[in-house]
């Protein structure tokens, strides 16, 4: 059963409890959270997480929601940035039972609801795949028949988030393709290097089709992919973008 996000209330900070941690790659971990009175969300939305030290010092970061609106728990996938201030705390310090302050769901622009229909073109770079995965999970839970094409860009095969799960979506009306930008496994038959016109043409990203296009990831990735889509003839106003900043979040 589909739950639509309610009208946005004043955003309040809530206390979430970590139910468990789920490693995704050597640097990314999903936090499975219990959030009392969670109002529900739309795929694509994010939460703001706030950490407070004993002397009152605070740090805040935004994380895209990885879980579908239909899921019982809220899931956030966090990419650990080595010299980061917040991400190493979330991936390395938190234990099940620990609490976390967050507010949300936030953001009505970069969202997709099964009722919106498709076909979808989802392009994710690194952790930019997270909100797009929420869309794919929502699509499956809602039993949507919207066609979806996904292009995942990652540094290496080991860095691809949700690899096994993506393969299962690939069997159900979703096409998933990969481009690995820094290293490829032996015998790799997929794409390598930055997203380019050829890849998009092969994916059938034809500007003539009314695609719902979502691009997410580090700012450089998003700017580049949006440029290539526009070169291909897409209207920039029909490309929805979410930029994670220089480090990619």
């Amino acid at each position, binding site marked *: 059963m589909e739950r639509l996000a309610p009208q946005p209330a004043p955003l309040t900070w809530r206390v979430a409890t970590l139910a468990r941690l789920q490693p995704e790659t050597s640097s990314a971990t999903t936090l499975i959270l219990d959030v009392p009175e969670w109002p529900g969300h739309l795929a694509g939305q994010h939460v703001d997480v706030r950490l407070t030290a004993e002397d009152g010092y605070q740090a805040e970061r935004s994380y895209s929601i990885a879980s579908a609106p239909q899921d019982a728990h809220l899931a956030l996938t966090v990419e650990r940035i080595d010299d980061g201030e917040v991400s190493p705390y979330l991936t390395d310090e938190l234990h099940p039972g620990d609490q976390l302050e967050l507010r949300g769901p936030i*953001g*009505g622009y970069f969202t997709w609801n099964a009722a919106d229909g498709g076909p979808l073109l989802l392009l994710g770079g690194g952790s930019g795949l997270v909100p797009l995965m929420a869309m794919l999970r929502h699509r499956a839970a809602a039993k949507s028949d919207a066609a979806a094409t996904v292009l995942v860009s990652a540094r290496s095969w080991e860095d691809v988030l949700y690899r096994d799960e993506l393969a299962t979506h690939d069997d159900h009306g979703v096409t998933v393709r990969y481009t690995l930008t820094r290293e490829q496994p032996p015998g790799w038959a997929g794409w390598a290097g930055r997203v380019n016109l050829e890849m998009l043409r092969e994916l059938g990203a034809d500007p003539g089709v009314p695609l719902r296009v979502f691009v997410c990831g580090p700012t450089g990735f998003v700017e580049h992919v949006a440029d290539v889509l526009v070169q291909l003839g897409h209207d920039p106003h029909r490309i929805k973008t979410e*930029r994670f900043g220089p480090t990619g979040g």
Partner: protein
Amino acid sequence: MEATEQHTDGNAIAGILQEIFVAEFTTLERTCQSCGDRNPAGAHRSYRGAGIVLRCPHCGDVALRLAVLPDEYVFELRGAWSRRSNT
């Protein structure tokens, strides 16, 4: 136009904007006072200086300046902003 990897976009400041306006902000559309292009707030480029700046994704002109003070928010909106009334 000039693009740099240092910026994010309107989605990144959606939380603080919803805190101020007590309403979803990223879906509001703005017609630029300089170039006339129309884009949702979520598609605008967001910069963090002393305060926060949102800029037109087409021409880079300032759309929003925002300062968060201890007891108030100080903000300037430029251009013509639109919100649908029938939803």
